[in-house]
Structure formats: structure tokens, C-alpha cells
């Protein structure tokens, strides 16, 4: 099986350890094919992946990120709830002092909604057709590596 090209060695991120990524499904949506494929791709690319499972609230996701010392939070949202979930999540991250966590969202996000998400601080929005490699590259390029 071909492994994904990380661009960097597996030792990266803060203090030279593997990047830690929390993949979460917020809200009621149960369609997890994308989340699971991406989670596996990131793991194959040398990242430590924690998949929270389904039906997460923004509170639980932030709590997981805190507990897991996450560098990245990846949300998978296909249900249209992103305009509710993203602001809540970003607010909670700020309140917890987790501003430097890289937040990315994948799923069904209309073009019209992307600018507002970016304004909130969501760095990457991955719409249908995005490849696993693109996401790996984006994370590696945008994660804060400052300790």
C-alpha cells in the first residue's frame, strides 16, 4: 500500500513529536465515510489521529482537543450545521486559550459560506472532490509548530 507523502518527516509539530489531530463529527449527522477515510489517511501520513465518533457537541470536541493536546481539529459536517457549529467551536477554543489549534472543516459547505468561516478563524474548508493528499499537505503547511 502506498503511504501518503508527508512532505516532512513523521517527527513534526510541537516539541518535535507527531502531529496530533482530533477528527470530529459535530451535530446529528452520522455520515462518517469521509471522516474515517481522512482519519486513516492522516494516520498513514504519520499523524496521531483521535476520532471522537459521532454526535459531538462543540463543548465535547474542545474538551477532547484539550485532553489530547491536539494541534489540529478537523470537523466533518455534511448536514448544513456548520454555521452553527463553527462559531461555537471557535469561541470555546478562544475561551480555553487554544487559539493556535489549526481548525479545518470538510463536508458540504456552500461557497457562499466559506468567507465567513475563514473570518472566524477556520483555516481550511475542504469541499467535495478534495483529495486526501491535499488535506495532508494543508495541515503540514498550516499547523503552528511554535512550542
Amino acid at each position, binding site marked *: 500500500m502506498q503511504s501518503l507523502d508527508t512532505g516532512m518527516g513523521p517527527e513534526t509539530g510541537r516539541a518535535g513529536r507527531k502531529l496530533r489531530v482530533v477528527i470530529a463529527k459535530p451535530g446529528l449527522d452520522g*455520515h462518517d465515510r469521509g471522516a474515517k477515510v481522512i482519519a486513516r489517511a492522516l494516520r498513514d501520513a504519520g499523524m496521531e489521529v483521535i476520532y471522537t465518533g*459521532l454526535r459531538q457537541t462543540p463543548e465535547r470536541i474542545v474538551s477532547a482537543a484539550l485532553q489530547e493536546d491536539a494541534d489540529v481539529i478537523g470537523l466533518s459536517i455534511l448536514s448544513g450545521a456548520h454555521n452553527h457549529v463553527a462559531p461555537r467551536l471557535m469561541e470555546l477554543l478562544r475561551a480555553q486559550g487554544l487559539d493556535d489549534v489549526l481548525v479545518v472543516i470538510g463536508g458540504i459547505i456552500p461557497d457562499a459560506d466559506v468567507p465567513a468561516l475563514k473570518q472566524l478563524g477556520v483555516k481550511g474548508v475542504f469541499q467535495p*472532490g478534495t*483529495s486526501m493528499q491535499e488535506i495532508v499537505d494543508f495541515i503540514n503547511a498550516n499547523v503552528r509548530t511554535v512550542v
Partner: protein
Amino acid sequence: MKAVAPERRVTFKTISDTPVARVYTPEDVRDIDPARDLPPPGDFPYTRGIHASGYRGKLWTIRQFAGFGTPEDTNARYKALLAAGSTGLSVAFDLPTLMGRDLDHELSLGEVGKCGVNVTSLADMETLFDEIPLGEITTSMTINAPAAIIFAMYLVVAERQGVSWSTLSGTTQNDILKEYIAQKEYIFPPRPSMRVITDVFAFSTDAVPRWNTISVSGYHIREAGSTALQELAFTLRDGLEYVQWGVDAGLDVDAFAPRMSFFFNAHSDFFEEIAKYRAARHLWATAMTDRFGARDARSWKLRFHSQTAGVSLTAQQPYNNVVRTALQALSAVLGGTNSLHTNSLDEALALPTEAAATLALRTQQIIAHESGVTDFVDPLGGSYFLERLTRDLEDGAIRYFDQIDDMGGMVAAIEQGFPQREVAESAYRFQQAVERRERTIVGVNDFVEDHEPLEILYIDESAAERQASKLDDLRRRRDTDLVARTLDTLRATARTRDNLMPAILEAVRAYATVGEMCDALREVWGEYEEVATI
């Protein structure tokens, strides 16, 4: 053997990774005896079709899945679809409804009306079918965990329209097993969920005899990434599991099996799909006689709805999707589908606009009335290739049946994570194949080009606001004590082995909400939590 020119690939495989030969000859079907294995359509085991006259007798039902926003919004869309030539209705509910949550639950925020129509109580159901005569049309409702509740709401609406339940026809999807496997819209654990389903079987046999109590589904399993074989095998094995549980609950197989129906995906690999439908009919007929000794021919005949593959449609160059959908729909028709939904070109972007939904409907009408393929039954039957493919899928499915039987059945297999792992593995392999460009997706990994942005249906929070104010109003108007009593009865009944439908009907009539009724059941049965694995 003649030398052949170099080919475009070393091996050719279906989208499910099944290798295919260059050409098929009588040698390839030596093990198939046409007299024994390929009787005419309408004859057991129905490989060639369950009706002797096929579409000459009756065309498939054009049943377009629709729902968004408020019941008023969706009611208008249903009227438009019926006016445009839809011959049956199909309801898409929003996630709060699907998950048995009222719209003011914290998990419902941002979700109301986005993926389907919000139905909180009987009042919403009445609005949804306002001026739509339930005695004259059939409705399929894609609802699973709260299916018995939504079914009860439909029954009460019909009753209030003066339609007798003995003539009422339609379908509730009511297939919880595929939720654990693929769609993940479960609420309760497997055992109580199976109990509700067998309660619906038992109730409907006498009370609503023309109702399809279940639509055992492979569509979602396929969308989650399975191969065609896995879709076929897991769906049918789910069906056999339901029959077993029904029989174990004391029901006579021929009393409920005739009203089981199925729902398959119509995916991109044209011939593989046609073979899959034929294999499904054959497998079901033989399993129903061999495993359960079913004697009524209606128990043997697999009837199915199909939907073209949403997952195959792209956000890039969306007009390409019209072509994909047309080809997929054609394969479903050549496979003998009894009912069909065609996706809209904006599937990967949003819920369909009216224009996109209409074009999808026209796609079916063009196939039905202009292509000529409906003038013969099972036109591809006898093709060496197709018969080989059909037989191989049957053999593969039987191997999966044996494997799942050895695990203790489908509920046990699900608890062990088996079908879920199979699906996830296939999904990952497919994505890798696409990214390595072993599999082309036009407009995505080849023939890439920018396109004009499309106008899409945008659902904002106004639907949630309108529904919230209706809910406030309902809570003020209804008899609170009566609601509380019906919920007590519901809880009490859930603790016994008595059929739940009467208690559900009473709670529905009192205008208890979907969330209230599901919470009552959550108190008794708990909630299912999947072990999250990648």
C-alpha cells in the same frame, strides 16, 4: 488464441474491484442451465423479474425523494413533483426528526430543515400532506429509528382524511440494521430496535395490510463505500435477519414477509448493477424457501426501489451529473427496478432546486417513453457476461451469508464490527484508487476545468424559527396531562413485550412530539453508542 493489440490497462476491474474478462463466451456459463436457472420472468426464482409482463404491464414508480425546511415548504414541492409526473411520494426528514430530537435540543441547533423536512408532531404531518389525498397516492418515508412513530402519524393523518387503513399503501424504511452498518442514524440499541420493527410487522399485517413495513436497504451501505457484492450480501442478510426475528417473535413468515421491500443503489458500473439486481431476486427467493419454508409466492418475490448513486456525483462541473444519473437510472431499469429515484445535478452541493429536481424526473420519463427498453422484460438475460456476473455475485453473497451466520447472525456481526469494517476498508481502497488515478472521475481527477457557479437551494435558519414558534404554540394548545399519560403508557409498554403501536398511536393523537416519545423510549432502552474506530 488470436493475438490482440495492447490494451489500455493490464487488468480491467469493475468499480467494486472485480476483474472482468475481455469477452465472455458460452464456455463462461457452462455451469448455468437456462432451463433450471433462467426461467421466464414471473417464475421462481425470479432472476429475470417478478412480473411476467415487466414494464409492459406497469412502469416502475417514479418516486422522487424530497423534503426540506418546513412542512409547508415540502408540501409545495410535493405538489410540484406530482404535477410534473411523479407517481409516488418519498419523504426526506431532517436530522432532528430522524434522530428523535425536538428542534430545541442542543444537538438540533443548526440542523432544522437542512437535510429534509422538520416534523415535530402530528400537526406537522397534517401540514405536510395538506391537500394530498393519501387514499390516491403511495408514500415512502425514509425514517428508521423513529419509524413506528412517523408511521403512526401518517396513519392518523390518513384516518382524518377519511382513508381506510385497509386500503392505505406506502412504505416506511424502518431498517435499523443498515443504520448500525452505514448511515448511523440509530437511537436505541439493536435488540429493542428489532422489537419495534417486529411490532410494526405484526401490527400492519391486520391493520394496514397493503403497507410495506420495511425497506431493507443497501443504498446507504453502498454510499458508505461498500462494493456491489457487499451491498448485495449485507442487504439481503439484513433482510433474512428481520425475517428470523419476526419468526422468533411468533409471527408466521407468510403473514409479514410479503410486505417486506428492498432498496438498492444504482451505481456507476453499468453491468455490475444489473447483475446485482438479478442476483438479489434469485438469492431472496431461494433463501425464503430454503431457510424459512415460506409458502406464499409473495414472500419469495423481491420488490425493490432504487436510487441513483449520490456519492458518485460531483461538485465540479455539476452538469456532468445529469449524464451520470441517466446511465445509472438506465441500469436500474434494465435490472427491473420497481420504483426509482433519480438524483439532481446539484446533489453534491445542496438539496435540489425545483429545476434540478424536475430534470431528474424528466430523465426517468425519457427512459420510460423514448428509449424502448421497457418493451421487453429482462432484455439482457442470456448474455454470457451478465449471467456470469450474476452468478458470481450470488456465490459471493452466499459466502458472506455463511460468514455472518457463523458469527451468530447479523446483529452479532454488527456488534463485532464486521460489516462496518468491510465497508470502511472498501471506502479507503476506492479513495486511494481515485487519488492514484487508477479510477477516473471526469472533472475531478481528469478533464478538470472551472465552471460557472451554480445557483443552489440555500436553507437558512428561518425554517427553524418558523417551526420553533409552531412548537411553542402546540405546547400551549395541547392537553399537557393527556400527553404525559400517553408517554407513561408508552414507557410502560416498552417495558413489556406488548405491541407498541397502540401506545404510540395514542401519544401521537395527543400531539406528543417526536422528541418526547423518543425520550420516553430512551429512558427504557438507553441509547446505542458505537465504538468509534477508524
